[in-house]
């Protein structure tokens, strides 16, 4: 009994899961087998977005905290890694985790300052934190070079004995992103399905009950934000080294909106459906390639529709069918129930 969708599609679930896993594996391999650079670039972006969406899912979907600072974590990770590599000459492999750590620390500070309050304040405070980061990125010119950004980030290199790999083309970067995404998502999967993950859900579902069972909600909320920020910060580091430039547009609110759509439509608090929806939303708009303004209008409409009709996303709809199934099954076999 692990995934919350576990009982949903009860009997055929293992088959569905393995089919899904197969399809995902095939999808992940496609850019490696394809000679097309665009497919590889799209693959990099899909990997990073899927990871970001899953990290956001951890904090919003599982723990119930609507955190608008994800984009700030992305930026902090990206900027920290870029600055450490270009100014201090650190290796990318050290700079990136430090970027993730700094993002996590920032996340803890923001979360600590606002979590003692209502959930409204948390949303607004995280939003303000993201705006503050934009101001810092733009105006602390001596540190971030302001709007000019830090261009010319060097390609990460691997030296292992006789093995020398410079990750300087989309093919190799896709390899790196894929390894990272699989690792990070597996990490998140492990967290979500551990007792910690269950505690996150218990806090989201019923905080007083969780407290009455001895759970310290603040501690676990902070843990959730911190983990999510760490993973998102790593995504940021990878993202800017893939682009070879970091500038304040990494803090574009547009990323927040995209992450939101991926999680909300997929079903907050569900694992596989959000993974699938993050892939769909990072690949489909590219294939359809219609105006970004209209894309955002459509996302907005989708958000409103989702909130009106299926606030728990696609997975929520499936889950409802599962609940109906139980209702029927119990009605058939009951007699003693009031």
């Amino acid at each position, binding site marked *: 009994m692990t995934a919350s969708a576990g009982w949903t599609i009860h009997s055929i679930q293992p088959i569905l899961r393995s*089919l899904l896993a197969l399809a995902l594996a095939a999808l992940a391999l496609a850019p490696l087998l394809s000679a097309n*650079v*665009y497919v590889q670039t799209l693959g990099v972006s899909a990997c990073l977005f899927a990871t970001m969406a899953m990290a956001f899912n951890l904090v919003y979907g599982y723990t119930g905290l609507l955190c608008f600072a994800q984009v700030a974590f992305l930026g902090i990770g990206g900027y920290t890694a870029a600055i450490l590599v270009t100014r201090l000459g650190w290796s990318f492999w050290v700079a990136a985790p430090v970027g993730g750590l700094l993002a996590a620390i920032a996340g803890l500070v923001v979360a600590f300052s606002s979590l003692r309050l209502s959930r409204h304040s948390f949303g607004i405070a995280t939003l303000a934190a993201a705006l503050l980061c934009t101001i810092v990125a733009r105006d602390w010119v001596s540190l971030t070079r302001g709007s000019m950004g830090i261009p010319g980030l060097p390609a990460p290199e691997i030296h292992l004995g006789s093995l020398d790999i410079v990750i300087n083309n989309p093919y190799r970067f896709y390899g790196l992103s894929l390894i990272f995404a699989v690792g990070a998502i597996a990490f998140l999967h492990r967290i979500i399905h551990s007792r910690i993950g269950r505690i996150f859900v218990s806090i989201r579902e019923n905080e007083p009950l969780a407290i009455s069972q001895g759970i310290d909600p603040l501690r676990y909320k902070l843990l959730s934000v911190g983990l999510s920020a760490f993973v998102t910060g790593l995504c940021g580091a990878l993202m800017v080294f893939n682009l070879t430039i970091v500038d304040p547009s990494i803090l574009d609110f547009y990323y927040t909106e995209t992450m939101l759509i991926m999680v909300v439509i997929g079903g907050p608090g569900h694992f596989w459906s959000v993974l699938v929806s993050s*892939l769909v939303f990072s690949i489909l708009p590219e294939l359809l390639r219609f105006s970004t303004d209209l894309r955002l209008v459509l996302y907005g409409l989708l958000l409103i529709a989702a909130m009106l009709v299926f606030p728990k996303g696609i997975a929520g709809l499936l889950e409802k069918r599962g609940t109906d199934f139980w209702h029927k099954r119990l009605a058939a076999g009951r007699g003693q129930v009031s």
Partner: protein
Amino acid sequence: MKRNLRLNGALAAAGLCLMTAGAIAQQSGPIKIAATLPLSGGAANFGQAARNGADMALAEVNGAGGVLSRQVMMDVQDNRCNPTEAVKVVTQMLSDGGYSALFDGLCSSVVLASMPVVDRAQIPYMVATASATAISEKSGVGGSKWTFKFNPTDASMAAAMVSWLTEKGLADKIAFLGEDTDFGRSGGDGFKAALKARGKALLSEDYYQQGTADFSATLTKYRTSRPGVVGIYALASDQQNIVNQMQAFGVKVPLSGRVQTDSIAKELLESGFLDGTSAVQPYSPEIDTPKNQAFVAAFKAKYGSAPNSISYSAYESMRTLLDAIQRAGSTEPEKIRTALTQAKFPTLLGGEVSFDEYNLAHTFAVIFQIEGGKAKVVGLSKT
């Protein structure tokens, strides 16, 4: 999921097909040029201006029989002024193959992020309108041999402006007000550097977030500090706001810098409030050469308004690029690149476009001044 898989396979297959198709198309069919511009988001109106200029150049060349007796087509993709988006679309277009060159990007960060992609794809890249100095520093002998930058750098424009202001004895009390972007920041740095070379300094230096509504604080400051000139680096929208609020607060100080005289409200311009204001732009529709006047007339006929400097840069750089393809005698990237390094293309304003060892063209800085409610060209210098 299965469908996605198939889609992806199809994509890959399509990519392969296009590559082969591209190889064949190189002998015949239209010459294709890839372009990215911001067509949505905050900079969309500038993207459109650039697109108009480039389209105009293409229409003229195609009307005269095309290049190498083939028609030229430009595919424009939206980059939203965001480097992530830009890298995706540029990579897509270049990997589809069949393109002979990449054109512009408008925003400097977009161009800087696109340069490595271009170097990998080994295809000539004509940067028409992005202005950051870093682009040419990283081109030619500075790194990317495929990137060519047409319009002057922010630094050189600022230098031209300061040089003119010094001549007129106006350079002693300059207050700088710029938007908080690479455009505004490098303008400010350019002003500071040019003043420093003359042993002078700025009176004050302020930056504001793009889209700031209220400038009363800064303007009130000017009422006290009384600058002789306010150098502004602002986009049309913010500039309009600044100028209107200057009038409203009675701050009557001549402006300078990258003032877009065409976007100042007519009443204000004619009231004489801005008399004494000077501006530097890479271009002016006022410049009285026969070629330029013909261009302005044709542009007005096509789009209903006079070309701005963005449209001009796009137009002229596209003409330069097409000329290079013609001279290369082939759409082979290396040949086009060589032809570009040897370019000597006559410009609308007189003189020729040629690229230096940093692949930077040294075009013109046009100095305007507003007198009697009208903007006039008072200086033209090579950058």
